[in-house]
Structure formats: C-alpha cells, structure tokens
C-alpha cells in the first residue's frame, strides 16, 4: 500500500473536465427529449462514460500512481465493459431482431 | 498492523452492509408472499395440518416440492395440476388419495413408496395442502407439468 500525493490544481482540472463532459453529454443528448440514439451516438455516449470512469479511477482514486500493469488492467476492464454494453445495444440492429414488432 | 485492521474493518462493514440489504429484501419478500404470491384466504387449518403431515412423514426425503427435496420421487408442488386439478379439483384430490392408499405397489424394480397408513381426514388434509401449494405464484416454474 502506498500513499498518493495530489495537488489541488490537478484535482480541480479533473473536476472541470468531468463536469464539461457531463454537460456536453447532456446538451448533445438534449436530455429531456425522447430520441433514439443512432449507433454512433450510442458509441459516443458509452465512450464518454468509460472515459469519465477512467478519469475518476486515475485522478480521484489515484490509480495513476500505481504500476502501469494495474493501469492497463483497469483500462482493459472498462473497455471490455463498455464494448460489451455497446455490442449488446447494437445487437438490436441484427437481422434476427427484425421480426415484426407488436 | 494498520492495513490488517483496516482489512478487518472493511470485512465487517461490508458484510454488515450486505446483511442489511439482504434482510431488507427478505422483509419485502415476506410482504410479497403474504399479499401477492400466496393465497392467505385459502390457507386454512386443513392445509396447515396437511403441511404438518407432509413434514412428519418426511415426504421431502424422497419427493421434491417447488424443486427442493430429494429427487428420488416426483415433484409435488404441481402434482395437483398434473392430476387435472385445474379442471376437476375433486377428481384430482380423489386420485391423489387413491394413489396414496395403493402404496406400496410392490412391483419389482420399481421405486417403492411406503404405506403411511393415513386416515381419511389426514388424506384430505394432505390433498388440501397439495392443492394449496399448486396455487403459489412460482414465476412460472416448473416449465412442464411433469414437474
């Protein structure tokens, strides 16, 4: 176990980026409108979420002070998660699902 | 030493956290069983007596009920349904009683059910119990009437 040394400016910068990403998602998604996302938008949405999660891990949780193995491990984990979610989301576009909807 | 006591605290705290959630969910399920998935009105004394007979004859150590038990003899959670009780309740109950009374079959090479020497009222209670069990909302289980 080890302790991390962070500085305030860095934390504030991380916070600003996270807030910026959240606001951007909110505006781009026009939060209160009921629109279907095209595959590209879904990919962007999940990508941004993964990125935010990675930022929280690296900056707030101090993962970037750990070994590079751990850093890649968590990156891979998040990528696997978001890609699987995306794949499951896009599965609807497969012809199997193009049966007549009720 | 530091990290170990922290490890211990995380273990205690985390376990307590999950225990509280678990108890909360069971409390919710308790209410659900009472009000939604089982029928309190038909759960009369005869059904409860039937359940006690089911227990003291250790039926569960051959049969299963709602899938739990000994896998040696058929599932009885839906035996009432299997005997056609949805259309003819009395017929199904009579058939269950007749089956009980015909045991053991004594057929060579066939699994044997003991003769439990139940009286007529006891048979009635047991059949009522099995009828009540078949009305539990089990999320659609079992997949076929074979149990």
């Amino acid at each position, binding site marked *: *176990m*080890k*302790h*991390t040394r*962070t*500085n305030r400016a860095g*934390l*504030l910068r*991380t*916070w600003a980026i*996270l*807030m910026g990403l*959240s*606001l951007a*998602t*909110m505006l781009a*998604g026009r*939060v*209160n409108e*009921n*629109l*279907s*996302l095209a595959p590209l938008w*879904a990919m962007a*949405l*999940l990508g*941004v*979420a993964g990125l*935010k*999660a990675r930022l*929280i*891990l690296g900056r*707030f*949780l*101090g*993962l970037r*002070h*750990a070994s590079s*193995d751990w850093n890649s491990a968590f990156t891979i*984990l998040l990528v696997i*998660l978001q890609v*699987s*979610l995306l794949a*499951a*989301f896009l*599965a*609807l576009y497969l012809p199997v*699902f193009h049966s007549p909807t*009720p | *030493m*530091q*990290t170990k006591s*922290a*490890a211990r605290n*995380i*273990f205690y*705290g*985390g376990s307590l*956290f999950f225990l509280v*959630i678990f108890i909360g969910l069971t409390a919710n399920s308790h209410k659900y069983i009472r009000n939604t998935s089982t029928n309190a009105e038909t759960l009369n004394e005869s059904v409860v007596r039937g359940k006690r007979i089911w227990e003291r004859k250790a039926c569960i150590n051959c049969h299963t009920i709602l899938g739990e038990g000994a896998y040696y003899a058929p599932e009885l959670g839906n035996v009432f349904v299997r005997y056609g009780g949805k259309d003819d309740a009395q017929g199904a109950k009579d058939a269950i009683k007749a089956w009980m009374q015909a045991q053991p079959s004594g057929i060579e090479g066939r699994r044997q059910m003991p003769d439990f020497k139940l009286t007529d009222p006891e048979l009635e209670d047991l059949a009522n119990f099995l009828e009540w069990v078949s009305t539990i909302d089990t999320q659609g289980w079992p997949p076929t009437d074979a149990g």
Partner: protein
Amino acid sequence: MQGHKNAESWGPLSSLPGNPMIWILILSELMVFGVGLMGFVIARDIDPVGFAKSQDSLNRLAGAINTMVLITSGLFAALAVEARARDNVQTSRWWLLAAGSFGVIFLIIKAFEYRDKILHNSAGLNENFLTLYFLLTGFHAAHVVMGLVILFIVGWKNNLENIETGTAFWHMVDLIWVLLFPVIYLLR
C-alpha cells in the same frame, strides 16, 4: 520463518493507493454492476419498444444533475485527502463534510425520483425495466448511504490511510454512477 516478508506485502495489490481491500471491493463492484448493466441491455433487446417507453418516463434531468452532484462531491473527497496529506486535519474534515452533504443532496433528488416512479407512472411499463431500474439504482443508492457512514467514520478517526480508504469507497460510488446513468437513463 524464512524470507523477509514485509508486513505490507499484499503481493501485486501492494502497489495500489489506499488499502488493498478497497481495491478488491472496487473490482468486485465493477463486476457486479457490470453484469447487472449487461443484463439490463440484454433485457432491452427483448423488448426495445417497452424499454424506450419506460425509459422516457424517467426524469433524465434529475439523473444528469445527480451525476454532477456526485462528481463535485468526489472533488471534495479528493480535496479532503489532499488536505490531510498536508496534515491539515480540520480542513480535511470540512471537505469530508462538504462531500457528505452533496451525497445527501444526491439521495434527496433520488428520493423524489423514486416517489414519482412509485406513486405515479409505473403502470404499463416494462416489468424487467422497472425491476432493473430499482435494483441497480437502489443498490447504488445503498452504497451512497454506506459511503456517508464511511465518510463520517473516517472524519472521526481521522488519519491519512483511513481517509484515503474511505474516500476511495466514495469515488467508487461516483464511478459506478457515471457508468450506470447513461445506460439506464440515456441509451435508447
């Protein structure tokens, strides 16, 4: 005893900041919520129309605001560690209080959302959706409550390791929400 096994040796986990147990927890939680979210998206594949309709009945704005509440709360938690690392105990306590207060705000918004959902508009919605919505966000909210308790404890037993470990839990709750929110509220 042979070898020089130092007391801090957790094997590969040693190089992680904060208590290694918290990282085991973070990994497990990522798995639990990851599997839960997968279940959600797959259940959506079965009834996309019902899911879209159900999702439209959620208050997306409340969810988005809550994202920012938690992110800000995370900043405060991180500042608490930073203050404590400079041996500034009192400041770190203030930051923890700030982080906790934002956690409470999160829960209040959540409570309004739940009340809305339970009282008014659950009829005719996809049952899988509702179950998963309540399970995933409810389980997350339970973590927020737990996090508040932890923040209180580490504010009280105020040392650097405790604060690092306690805020790590808090960040994890934040992290989970960041992954949860878009999938449940936005993906459609």
